[in-house]
């Protein structure tokens, strides 16, 4: 059929070249299929952002009231920031929500992209139209990925601000696991990673519930792996601190103590104390030097009198951006692996009409 005849026939038949097969059409399809998930995610993110912004204003106010330094523990502001006050509990809960947000993204946004199609057997319908399976998949993934990136970046921005404010008003370090994970770009990167892993596991398993369990298991496992390994992603620095002396400067500015810094009382007696020459004292030596005081506090003073020291391994706060990049790189590599696997699975997926 010539182009002219084809065009004429199209007019007669009300053919509509419209946006069929284009991004606009797939944008509508993606929205129509996932609208409740997207709206739910948006509402949850808006609540989270709004709540954290409100708390950030509260913390800023406390910081100003405490003359822009740590609030004393016995002050009204200090009491609001200490123990199990409602403010602290709320901050803890919100911090946990931000940490678990990537799992929610993976389970509710990532997994259903393909499992729902498999379960309703609509994949054959979708993939037998003019849009190729790869184009159908990657356009939808791009659109959903952009949505996830936008929403989680907003959450990450406010979360970052909140964690930094907490480190201004209370003696917490941004290198601790919770604040470390909730600052900079990590919440957004980890969310994107679990979105990709969710889609890939959904494509591999083809059933929603098992895929959800697989994502949850993977998330928990990787979270604990990261928590265990992140303090030693780079060789820690070492330092000696006189017992009873002032805190070391190196431990200020959000440093993370990896090892040491404490006198441990084990079955073999106390350990973890060093003489001024840097030699670690055995439990027997330590007890001979400073006999147990049965709780009078004399031992600690004795340690200080003998200029005993503690040995520390730590990561300075200046390394936080570098550690963020390393962890984010790991998650991005996992996301890339998931996407390559997904491409391979879709390429190999055979669908029969029967």
């Amino acid at each position, binding site marked *: 059929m010539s182009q002219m005849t084809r065009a004429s026939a199209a007019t007669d038949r009300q053919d509509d070249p419209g946006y*069929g097969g284009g991004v606009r059409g797939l944008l509508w*399809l993606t929205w129509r299929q996932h609208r409740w998930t997207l709206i739910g995610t948006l509402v949850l993110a808006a609540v989270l952002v709004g709540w954290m912004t409100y708390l950030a204003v509260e913390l800023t106010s406390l910081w100003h009231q405490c003359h822009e330094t740590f609030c004393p523990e016995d002050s009204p502001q200090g009491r609001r920031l200490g123990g199990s006050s409602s403010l602290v509990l709320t901050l803890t809960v919100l911090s946990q929500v931000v940490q678990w947000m990537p799992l929610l993204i993976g389970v509710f946004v990532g997994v259903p992209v393909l499992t729902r199609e498999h379960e*309703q057997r609509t994949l054959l319908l979708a993939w037998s139209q003019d849009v*190729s399976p790869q184009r159908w998949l990657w356009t939808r993934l791009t659109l959903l990925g952009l949505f996830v990136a936008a929403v989680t970046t907003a959450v990450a921005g406010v979360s970052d601000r909140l964690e930094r404010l907490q480190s201004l008003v209370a003696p917490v370090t941004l290198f601790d696991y919770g604040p470390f994970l909730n600052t900079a770009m990590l919440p957004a990167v980890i969310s994107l990673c679990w979105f990709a892993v969710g889609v890939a596991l959904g494509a591999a398993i083809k059933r929603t519930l098992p895929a959800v369990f697989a994502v949850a298991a993977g998330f928990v496992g990787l979270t604990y792996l990261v928590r265990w390994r992140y303090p030693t992603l780079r060789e820690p620095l070492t330092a000696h601190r006189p017992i009873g002396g002032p805190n070391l400067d190196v431990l200020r500015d959000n440093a993370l103590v990896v090892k040491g810094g404490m006198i441990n009382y084990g079955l073999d007696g106390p350990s973890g104390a060093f003489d001024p020459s840097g030699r670690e004292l055995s439990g027997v030596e330590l007890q001979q030097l400073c006999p147990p005081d049965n709780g009078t506090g004399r031992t600690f003073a004795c340690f200080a009198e003998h200029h005993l020291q503690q040995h520390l391994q730590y990561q300075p706060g200046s390394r936080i951006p570098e550690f963020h990049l390393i962890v984010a790189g790991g998650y991005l590599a996992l996301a890339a692996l998931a996407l390559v696997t997904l491409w391979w699975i879709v390429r190999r997926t055979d669908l029969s*009409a029967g």
Partner: protein
Amino acid sequence: MSGPPVAVEARDLGRRYGTVWALRECDFVLPTSRIVALVGANGAGKSTLLSIIAGTLSATSGTLLVHGRPVGRGRSTDGGSRVAILAQDKPLYRDFTVSDMLRFGRSTNRVWDQRRALSWLRRFDVPLDRRCGKLSGGQRAQVALAVALGSRPEVLLLDEPLANLDPVARTEVTGELMAEAADDDMTVVLSTHIIAELSGVGDHLLLLDAGRPVLTGDVEDLLDGHVRMTGPRADQPPGPGVIVQAQHTERQSTFVLRRPAAPTAHAVVAPGWTAQPVALDELILTYLRASARAPHEREAAA
């Protein structure tokens, strides 16, 4: 001599699931602008063949051409022939309304004929604002057909399309489908295992048995080319032709013959013999029985 334009051509096509061949040694040609009846028992390989033609399933061996272009799995139809498939279970997005399904068709196809899709739904009184999950089986089939027809495919593959329809709706749908196919120069391949459904529907036949094509051709030509001869018991029929089936009683023999390609007068050469035309359903059953016997005979000969 050039034959009619070819819509689908299979060359030594095969598809294996594990160690089982669902399709094997398939060589056939389906002409354009015809309604092709794809017939076979359950498990004969009909859905597998349709899926390969639609490009959603890869072939293990051989080549399949649609309008002269090789079909590959997962390939978009940019520049190629437009093929639509309606699966056996008529999948639809359950939470979409019927209108949404039409918009789905419009969103995912380069060409979309909204009027055609709407007119199909109106013909069968399918409410546009109802969710697909709440439609009856017959209505779901009509919506799936509307989406398939709205995309104006050059080749429309229908896998057991009449399975969910009542007898009246079956007649209506087949009639409308034939009209649509005639209006649009569309090739329709319609699979079924219910031979009674075929009456007056297909004008070309592809009969599959155990994954192999056992009979293919224009229905009229096939019917003209076969004859049933009945007469006194004899080992051979009195006329020329290939014996497709021979049945004997003590006094009588019945042969179904495939006549030679060259036109010859089909004379009854012996007294007492009668020649009768073969009906389509009878012809199909004859070939299916003959095909089922063939492996046993081969085994016996071996």
